[in-house]
């Protein structure tokens, strides 16, 4: 498949629009249900009290940012760089995943900071988990900045893919930081080394629903952001074509004049 094949895309079908709408409505309902269960139904924790209610939000946004968004961006970048699967589809998908991932990464840092203040007594600490997550945000902001540097689509896609793969190296560092270093941040509640969740009952179900809801929010945002990428490319390519045709039309009489 040629890299140029990703340039022109058909208009959005009614089926695609319907899918986006269904995912969006399901995500909104699931998020509302999570908030209701988290704030009004689940019990307070024996040690953290009501602060434990942030567990239904903070790990969910971190899951989306780190594993879904940046994992998808790394996978799509790898598929773009692989000659057999090279297509601007993967580049657009990676760009969409990174942009949405950056928003979720900000949400992770903000919700973590709000949880940290009453728990640790500080808004921020140069802790291994917090610092590596902040580094991840800076790296992927760099990715978005790099994409704004004017270049041919293929050149932009290649350099962005390399940067995404480089930045994604930080994802396992963030994940294992609580095991590799002594940190303020607690260990994983669900994805711990023994894979034995330390949360049960209504709290566990609400946590699971929170993960599902935020995953659906991510999928909806990814679909819409991908479509924006398609439209931007269509507009960019079309404007370039029109400018070239106008230039040719303007240039034709001049050429005749010169020849005369």
């Amino acid at each position, binding site marked *: 498949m040629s890299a140029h094949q990703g340039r*022109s895309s058909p208009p959005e079908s009614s089926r695609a629009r319907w899918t986006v709408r269904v995912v969006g409505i399901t995500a909104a309902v699931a998020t509302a249900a999570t908030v209701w269960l988290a*704030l009004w139904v689940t019990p307070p924790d024996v040690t953290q009290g009501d602060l434990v*209610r*942030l567990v239904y939000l903070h790990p969910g946004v971190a899951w989306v940012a780190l594993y879904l968004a940046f994992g998808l961006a790394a996978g799509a970048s790898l598929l773009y760089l692989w000659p057999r699967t090279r297509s601007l589809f993967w580049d657009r998908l990676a760009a969409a995943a990174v942009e949405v991932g950056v928003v979720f990464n900000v949400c992770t840092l*903000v*919700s973590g900071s709000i949880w940290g203040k009453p728990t640790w007594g500080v808004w921020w600490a140069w802790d291994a988990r917090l610092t590596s997550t902040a580094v991840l945000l800076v790296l992927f902001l760099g990715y978005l900045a790099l994409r704004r540097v004017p270049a041919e689509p293929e050149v932009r896609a290649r350099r962005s893919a390399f940067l995404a793969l480089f930045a994604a190296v930080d994802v396992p560092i963030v994940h294992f930081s609580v095991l590799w270093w002594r940190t303020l941040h607690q260990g994983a509640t669900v994805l711990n080394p023994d894979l034995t969740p330390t949360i049960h009952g209504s709290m566990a179900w609400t946590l699971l629903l929170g993960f599902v809801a935020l995953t659906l*929010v991510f999928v909806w945002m990814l679909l819409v952001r991908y479509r*924006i990428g398609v439209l931007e490319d269509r507009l960019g390519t*079309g404007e370039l074509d029109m400018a070239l045709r106008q230039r040719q039309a303007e240039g034709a009489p001049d050429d005749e004049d010169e020849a005369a």
Partner: protein
Amino acid sequence: MGYVVAGYVIVLSLLFLYAGQLVWRKRRLTRAVERFELLAAPGDEPGAGPAGSR
């Protein structure tokens, strides 16, 4: 409980604002592409849009 409510309000507001911005960007671009295709259509072959004219 104040920290908890603040956490939910800030994070959900951020997500909601970003979602709204995505919808706005998509609508604006869709309209721009439609306008552009109408402008580009007269000189083109039937069915060829700006991207398809390549």
